[in-house]
């Protein structure tokens, strides 16, 4: 067997272990280099993955892992987000004595996500899921003296565990019906026995899977943890959660639910309809509640929920186009949202450097006159927010463009008025979201600054600039990314 395709995972796992070992030996000050080490490892993995692009699928470990375009795209998303987060963390956790643990956990979470994106078996899926979840539980509560961070971690943990249990329960039912944990086998079985899939046991199994993935995706009503956790966690971790681990839910759902919807004809419409309802509620709820937020992190959390609603449109029509759109928007969202949280981290840094004991560092007021105080951050955040609102040319626009297109052509092709309704609601939502993004922009650019200009720390600037380049770059030259997303969607046979 040729394991070269697994080099990124192996490399990162070893790196994680090496870092924790180094941490035992190093002085607190030397630990600052661990961030660079992690970044180097992630960069190497990105290069390794880019080097292996192709449309073939490779199976490993008794078909429990698969390397295919879908997995590679999502791995790229995870790696990119992690890279941004790690670079920002170099600044965020500078001189923190527990950096070794932080980077280890981060890398392990990354490996977990990558495993999920490659999972071809319920067991590997679950294990990857849990690896990522548990690492992030700890990361969310990483500031162990900070009660908000801990509260965030606790809520994340409880709802996360509940969802894991639901997921496991759902998996057990699926296994019970099909007698296998291997995803292709399961799908084939359902295709052959659609009535079994449509039995109440099968449906309940699916619903539990939806709930389990929905938790990660932060779909309403499984989203409840997300605002609290994003708000309370260390900002770089929020960035990882919102931009990275959320996509884990999507890749798993793509692998399992999209295939399921495609395979099981009698249930297809119901699943699509159910996701239609979820998507509409999610985006509307996310956008409307985001309007009344004063905390930017919380606002970004709700915006993240709304974006999840858009991405879920991929499940509403389950065509190649829609999945590709979902993948593209997931990619775009990773950059935009990751970047946005990092920008918030810069603001927190700025506020804390004004006043050590400042609370609510992400309050809207702190963004007043940001364009004067931290121009690069302000401009980056401007780009991210506009991209999130779907203004071209940006990754957010391309993703939404393909997604909305996928839905509208299905609506036209099927002459389906409810699909049309879904897409119109999505569009109105998209316009509505401008309202709260623009408010932040107003604070940054229109209102007078409340302090002096600061020197923006280099790691943050590097991370922000990378994210901006990515966000606009995808908007200006989307062709390879669309190809990638189309290939990824093609894997699902849609």
């Amino acid at each position, binding site marked *: 067997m040729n394991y070269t395709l697994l080099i990124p995972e192996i490399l990162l796992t070893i790196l994680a272990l090496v870092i924790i070992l180094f941490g035992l030996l190093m002085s607190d000050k030397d630990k600052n280099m661990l961030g660079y080490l992690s970044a180097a490892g992630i960069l190497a993995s990105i290069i390794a993955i880019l080097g292996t692009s192709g449309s073939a699928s490779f199976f490993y470990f008794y078909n429990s892992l698969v390397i295919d375009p879908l997995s590679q795209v999502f791995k790229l998303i995870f790696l990119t987000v992690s890279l941004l987060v790690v670079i920002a963390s170099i600044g965020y956790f500078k001189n923190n004595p527990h950096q070794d643990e932080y980077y280890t956990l981060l890398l392990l979470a990354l490996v977990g996500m990558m495993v999920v994106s490659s999972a071809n078996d319920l067991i590997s899926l679950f294990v990857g899921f849990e690896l990522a979840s548990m690492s992030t539980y700890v990361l969310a509560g990483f500031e162990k003296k900070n009660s908000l961070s801990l509260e965030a971690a606790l809520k994340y943990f409880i709802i996360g565990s509940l969802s894991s249990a639901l997921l496991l329960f759902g998996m057990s039912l699926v296994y019970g019906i099909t007698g296998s944990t291997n995803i292709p086998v399961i799908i084939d079985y359902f295709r052959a026995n659609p009535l079994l899939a449509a039995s109440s046991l099968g449906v309940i199994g699916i619903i539990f899977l939806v709930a389990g993935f929905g938790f990660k995706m932060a779909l309403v009503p499984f989203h409840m943890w997300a605002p609290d956790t994003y708000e309370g966690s260390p900002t770089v971790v929020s960035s990882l959660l919102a931009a990275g681990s959320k996509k884990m839910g999507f890749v798993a759902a793509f692998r399992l639910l999209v295939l399921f919807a495609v395979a099981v004809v009698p249930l297809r419409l119901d699943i699509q309809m159910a996701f239609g309802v979820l998507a509409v509620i999610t985006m509307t709820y996310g956008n409307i509640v985001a309007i009344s937020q004063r905390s930017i992190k919380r606002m970004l959390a709700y915006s993240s929920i709304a974006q999840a609603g858009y991405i879920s449109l991929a499940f509403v029509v389950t065509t190649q186009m829609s999945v590709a759109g979902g993948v593209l928007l997931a990619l775009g969202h990773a950059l935009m949202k990751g970047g946005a949280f990092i920008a918030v981290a810069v603001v927190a840094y700025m506020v804390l450097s004004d006043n050590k004991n400042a609370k609510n560092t992400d309050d809207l007021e702190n963004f007043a006159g940001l364009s004067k105080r931290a121009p690069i951050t302000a401009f980056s955040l401007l780009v991210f927010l*506009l991209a999130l609102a779907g*203004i*071209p*040319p940006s990754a957010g*626009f391309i993703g939404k*463009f*393909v997604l*909305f*297109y996928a839905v*509208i*052509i299905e609506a*036209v*092709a099927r002459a389906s008025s409810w699909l049309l309704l879904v*897409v*119109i609601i999505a*569009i*109105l939502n*998209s*316009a*509505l979201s*401008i*309202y709260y993004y*623009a*408010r932040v*922009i*107003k604070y940054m*650019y*229109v209102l007078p600054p409340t302090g002096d200009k600061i020197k923006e720390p280099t790691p943050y600037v590097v991370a922000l600039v990378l994210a901006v380049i990515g966000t606009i770059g995808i908007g200006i030259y*989307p*062709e390879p990314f*669309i*190809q990638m997303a*189309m290939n990824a969607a093609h894997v699902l046979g849609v």
Partner: protein
Amino acid sequence: MALISLMIAIPLIGAIITFLTRTRQQARAIALISSGISLIISLFLLSRFSSSISAPQFLESTQWIASLGVNLKFGVDGIGLPLVLLSNIVIPLTVVFAWGETKQANQFYGLILLEQVGVLGVFTSLDFFVFYIFWEIVLIPMYFLISLWGGPRKDYSAIKFFIYTHVASLVMLLAIFTLYFMAPPVDPFTGQRTFDMFYLLNSYQIIASPILKDAIFLALLFGFIVKMPAVPFHTWLPDAHVEAPTAGSVILAALLLKMGGYGLFRIILPILPFSGSPGKLITLMAIIAILSILWGTFLALAQRDLKKMVAYSSISHMGYVMLGAAALIPLSVSGAMFQMFSHGLITCVLFMSCGVIQHSAGTRIIGNLGGIAKHMPKLAFLMMAGFLASLGLPAMSGFVAEFLVLVNSYITLPTFVILALFGIVFTAGYHLWAMQRAVFGTYNEKLGHIHDGAGYEIAAMAILVLLIIFFGLNPSPVLNMMTTNANQLVALAAGLKGVIT
């Protein structure tokens, strides 16, 4: 030679450099130079343009997003070139007018240049995807111009402008999607589709379902009439204008509104004859047009803020564009196109006048002004010229346009033309009322000592007034460009005779 992309790229580069400059002297110089180069290029295009060809000229096409069939395709024809010219005239003059801007000057001029990029892109792109992108890009600099340099209610107005027009563009996007999907693939073997504008517009005819056709039509129309804006989707405009800085208002009224009108000719009219129920749709357009004309007029009468009055007059004037388009007579269509060009010039003068008055007297409320001609004779003279042009005085460009629209639209839409004529008296009414109250009469001593507009302001306005008179006396150069395309649009609708009631 990719002249058109060069024409769009130069202001973009200029904008980036402008953003990076440190002093306002550098910023405005670069802004003027780069917008001026763009103007020179468009004049060169004009000199090489053949007005007897209806197809786009100076075509250039570069593949952009192969998988979606998106090409960076640019070209100008008789619909686009006059507006390109207008944009390139208005933007440098706006820079000149705003020569004295001191507040964050580099950003100010940079945003103006970005507007130029956006509108030029809209008027030249022949690919729906690219068109849409430019269409959206225009919003952002305008949002900033309003919210950074705007008046007291700038937040409300800026966001209202942004969301309102964004919703409209998204609805338009839906229709573009549908067209894209319903058009047969350009390459039947690979299933490759294309966003090519003409290809998609031609494919509109082969859509089978009349309901779907009408739905596409209405969605596109909605996108454009919000931008124009037409009643009842117009309320964002007065708010935006009242709060926007003068340069913003000028660009908004002179160029952004024209995007909606441009859409009517570029997109709506070519598909109108093939829609499901063209007769009803034409009636609908005519009703919207006449509503806008009269509504704009009467609301302008009710305004006490000079700038708001001018904003409503824009609504009224853009109604003529719609009316001429809906009438589908060759000269009514060219008249409507000419109305866009002419209104672009006239409205600049009006908003610049408001700006100078606001700047000098500190208020734009008509009742608080009075007799300012005494201290601002140059402004009063140019403002008078602008107002007279706006109320349709012959020998000014507005008259030519409105005359062509009214005379020719009567052939197919007599009732609507009679109603429009009815509005003309009131149009004169509010213009003269405002002049009498604000500019003439006894000087209101409460205003204290006011001074005339600065030299650069007066110069910008004077150039515009000269252009207005020039095109009023000699409309042929611009009109001839439009005629070929107008004839072609009407020829498409030849089958509609008798459908129109």
